[in-house]
Each structure stands twice: as C-alpha cells, then as structure tokens.
C-alpha cells in the first residue's frame, strides 16, 4: 500500500539524485520516492522541468521535497508554482533529512510530528 505522502529528491548531480532514494527505499518500501538530478543535458545543475516530472511521477498527491544547494531551491519553487500537487520544501540536510522523513512516513507518523523531528536538521 502506498503512503499518502511521497518524497522528492533534488540534487545538482544526477548520480546523487539516483542514489539517495536507494538509501531511503531500504527503510520506506511503501513510500513513493522520485528524484530530479542535473540539468536537462545531465550536467551539474538543476532543471525546473525535471523537478516537475519528478512531482508527476510520484504516486502521492502531497510531497516532501529535499534539495542540496540554494539554487536548486529556486528551481524547486518554480516547479511548485507550476504544479498541481501540494509540495512542502524543507531547508534541511538533504540526505539526513530525507532519510528521517522516509523512516517516519513508513511508520505512518503524522506530518506535523515529522516536521518537528526535521526541525533540528535545518541548516539552510
């Protein structure tokens, strides 16, 4: 059964974007996790279009999004403005924050409790 909330990983580096979900899937088999990494040419950078695709591919209607550097947040926000899904962006450590969220979503923890546990990981 797929959970109500999904996770989206945004990184400047295609390999990082592919890899982080592998860490998360180990502890969150029922959470839909999608990712966007690199520019449209797969160079280092981010792409609002790829991020939109990651939103669409995600099976959940409400998403928790995590990103690496500040410039990916701008593309993330642009994508959010263009998307129909509800997306919450967290200014926390990418890997550690997403791992925490994945663990807690899998255990059906309420979003507000997840956000409380993410708070100390805010570093941006």
């Amino acid at each position, binding site marked *: 059964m797929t959970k109500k909330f999904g996770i989206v990983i945004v990184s400047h580096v295609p390999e990082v974007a592919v890899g982080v979900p592998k860490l998360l899937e180990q502890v969150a088999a029922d959470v839909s996790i999608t990712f966007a990494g690199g520019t449209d040419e797969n160079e280092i*950078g981010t792409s609002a279009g790829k991020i939109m695709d990651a939103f669409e591919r995600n099976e959940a209607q409400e998403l928790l999004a995590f990103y690496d550097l500040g410039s990916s947040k701008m593309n993330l926000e642009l994508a959010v403005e263009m998307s129909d899904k509800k997306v919450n962006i967290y200014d926390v450590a990418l890997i550690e924050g997403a791992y925490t969220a994945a663990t807690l979503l899998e255990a059906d923890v309420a979003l507000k409790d997840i956000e409380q546990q993410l708070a100390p990981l805010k570093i941006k």
Partner: protein
Amino acid sequence: MMITVEIVDKWMELFYLKVSEQKAYLSELDTPIGDGDHGNNMMRGMQGVKDSLDKLTKPDLKTTFKTIAMALISKVGGAAGPLYGTAFLEMAKKCDETQAPVELFSYALEGIKKRGGATVGDKTMIDVWAPVVDILEKSSLSVEQIREAANGTKDLVAKKGRASYLGERSVGHLDPGAVSSQYLFESFIEAGGIK
C-alpha cells in the same frame, strides 16, 4: 519610452552577442567565488532564448517575455536560470498593464528578490537591478551608471549564493551575475529602450 516587441527582439539579440563575447570572462569571474560556470550558463540560456524567439511569428509582448523566461528557466541550469527567468516572467505578467521600463524592471526586481531571498548589498545581480530601477525612477539611465553599480559589487561581502560560503573572503571580486546584468542593461540602452 515604452517597451515594444521590436525593442525586446533587438535587446535580446544584443545581449546574446555580449554574452557570446564575454562568456569566458563571466565564467572566470565565477571561478574564485563560485563554480566557474556563469558564462557557460548564460550562453546556453541565451542560445535557448534566440532559438525560441526565432520560432515565434508575430508574437505580442507578453508572449515574447514569456518565451524568454521559459528558455532561461529551462536552459541556464544554474541559479541565474530561475532568477533571470522569474524576472522575465514577472514582466510577462505585468506588460498588459504597463510598458514603461521602470515599472516592468521594478516588478522584475521584486520577482528576483522573492525568488532568491536576497536583498540590496548581498553581492548579487540585485545590486545592479536595484540601482537601475532607482535611477530610472528619477531620470534616464547611462552605461556609466550601470557599470558603476556592477563594479560596486567588488567591495561587498556575499550573503547569498555560492559566494556566500566565502563570507568576507568574497570581497575584492566582482559578482558574475551583477556583471551579466550589466550587459543586459547595456544591451537595453543600445536597443533603444531608453528615451
């Protein structure tokens, strides 16, 4: 002076040429305080703008601005993409209401500030956009004034973007986005956008 599609076309053509000429220099500016790609990013973006505009037949001003915005957003790849993209998106949203440069640039500036969370003095492109709007509110705009604004970023401490990791150590370097914005406004003057 009101902005027209003809002015914007000329503006983008001239900006494309300046970015082509200064591509290496913009990336060089981005090397000590960033990741050394600003010139390549802007070139990719402006190539996208050129290609997209070439495909349009008799577009109105709104379509032109929107096309520029989408090309920059999808092609630049770095922070400059969503920032310049947002600037042109805001102009597209408002150009039915007004075609006065000062008003459109002022909306664009607000968009840039909102998108990146930076403000005047943070050593970003805002330090060119904000003075340009200020000057236009009172009078005309000269190439010298634009350059002075861009050069002013040299003495600033970066508070946003990659350069901010260097803090005080960013002093003494020009901000690459401020310099590309300088080219943008120089091109605007050359395109006949002012007076």
